[in-house]
């Protein structure tokens, strides 16, 4: 083997190691989660996770039902997505199809800036500014509820939805639009009847990825949702999400206890939920890319 061949081989392996690192890390995380969650199954059995109450610190009976937490994550995520879709999609349409180059130069950095705001800052803003407003507008007893959380999370999802939807809209072939305009449709009709439908699967993938960001978000929801584990879908009630539960309880829990191990189950369920969401988004995105254009 010549020196050149040898160095080629070494470089190849180095690259392979670098590439397989992520796979290895994901596998290790899964392994770790399952290892730490086993004591719970041994002590209480898997059935205890299907309880309807989350009452991990109790002198009466410790209860580890993930149901209210799951419902909390679900309602906040769903609400945030509903709020983010119109702003995200219409914003993307405007930036990609209607805005002048100058406007685009202004909008795009701001969208990126919004994406970069640390979640703890948003949470603080939510607690001090948004919660009192929500309380006053809806005549509630407290502004710390699912709606306030969802409004803030929508702010986080919007930049994701805008940037990916914009890419999708941009890649709609010019010939589609030209054909539509040539047939006598005006600009707005072309956008809504031709461009948006052609980019639809890309837009759906954008929304799914936005949801992925929302469901995993921790700090903001911990600060503004009130964290009461009430099993409800009412947006004006306080909710406790899965992420907030892990963040809030991991610090003080006795290491190796059933409670400790139950938090890993919450983590596993969260991981599976985001995994499914990402998989659907990837599939939609792939279908969209495979489809022949123009």
């Amino acid at each position, binding site marked *: 083997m010549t020196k050149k061949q040898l160095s080629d081989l070494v470089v190849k392996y180095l690259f392979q190691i670098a590439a397989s690192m992520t796979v290895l890390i994901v596998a290790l995380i899964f392994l770790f989660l399952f290892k730490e969650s086993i004591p719970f199954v041994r002590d209480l059995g898997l059935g205890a996770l299907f309880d309807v*109450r989350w*009452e*991990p*610190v*109790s*002198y*009466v009976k410790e209860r580890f039902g993930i149901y209210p937490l799951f419902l909390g994550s679900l309602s906040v995520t769903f609400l945030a997505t509903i709020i983010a879709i119109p702003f995200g999609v219409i914003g993307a349409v405007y930036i990609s199809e209607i805005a002048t180059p100058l406007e685009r130069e202004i909008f795009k950095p701001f969208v990126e800036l919004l994406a970069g705001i640390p979640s703890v800052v948003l949470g603080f803003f939510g*607690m001090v500014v948004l919660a*009192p407003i929500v309380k006053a507008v809806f005549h509630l*007893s*407290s502004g*710390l509820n699912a709606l306030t959380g969802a409004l803030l999370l929508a702010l986080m999802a919007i930049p994701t939805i805008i940037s990916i939807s914009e890419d999708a809209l941009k890649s709609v072939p010019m010939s589609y639009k030209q054909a539509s305009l040539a047939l006598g449709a005006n600009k707005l009709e072309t956008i809504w009847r031709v461009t948006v439908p052609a980019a639809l699967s890309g837009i759906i993938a954008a929304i799914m990825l936005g949801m992925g960001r929302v469901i995993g978000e921790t700090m903001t929801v*911990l*600060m503004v949702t*009130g*964290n*009461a*584990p*009430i099993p409800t879908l009412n947006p004006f009630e*306080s909710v*406790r999400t899965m992420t907030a539960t892990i963040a*809030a*309880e*991991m*610090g*003080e*829990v*006795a*290491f*190796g*206890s059933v409670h400790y191990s139950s938090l890993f189950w919450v983590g596993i369920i969260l991981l599976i939920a985001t995994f499914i969401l990402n998989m659907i988004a990837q599939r939609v995105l792939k279908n969209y890319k495979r489809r022949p254009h123009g």
Partner: protein
Amino acid sequence: MKKSLITIVGAACLTAVMGLSPVFAGDTLQVKGSDTLVHLSSSWAEKFMEKKPASEVAITGGGSGTGISALLNGTADLANASRKMKDLEKDKIKSQGFEPVEFIVAKDGIGVIVHPSNPINQLNMNQIKQIFTGQVNNWKKYGGPKAKILLYTRDSSSGTFAFFQKRVLKEKDYSVRARRLASNSAIVESVSKDVNAIGYVGLGYVAEAGDRVKALKVREGDGPAVSPTQETVKNDTYPISRGLQVYSKGQPKGLAKEFVDYMLSAEGQQIVNDRGFVAVQ
């Protein structure tokens, strides 16, 4: 040429590391645990290091559980805890061949706070229990306005949460509707904004909040109604008070012993009072 550059860079790094870490110069002590105790502990460490400049005391928060598990796996020499060590944790220390040793280094009272406009000034322990367990959910029942009570508690991870549950709720569960906030300050902030709210915070926070919230007088049974102050916590007339603990694995030795002795000294206990907690001696 290349070699000399590496030597220079290496030497520079080494000096930087040595310059930045006085750790190598003397003893170092790791203290980890409760967020309630972290400020008080830092004040102790600051004064302690002024007296013994060669030593280094590092204080970290993270929670009572975090501190105790750090004590277990040897990354901390002392653990701060706002709750008593659990049996499970004691057993783990014993299985390593050590006895857990507890020092009560300060006392803390828990004030029950409401909005300043609330006409109610005092409640007895049973009434507070009924409010926080959700059995009573309207202020009217206790002579207040006809309005729903808005409950705030600390999160279940907090040592204060567990203590209040044991002492006041008599081991019953909190109402599921109680909103759970991450810190004492968040509870003060929320109660000061909601006219129908009730919550509980440590003594230091009651004093700091001033007129923004009202601390209720608390009655035990038929006893007198007592306001939460340093005085009433110290002489045990205020019913909701607890000890704050420092734990070590076996009897503390060397620097750890000196630091514990310092906490319990007259000077250390003066710092306790200055920080809004209550001295034990």
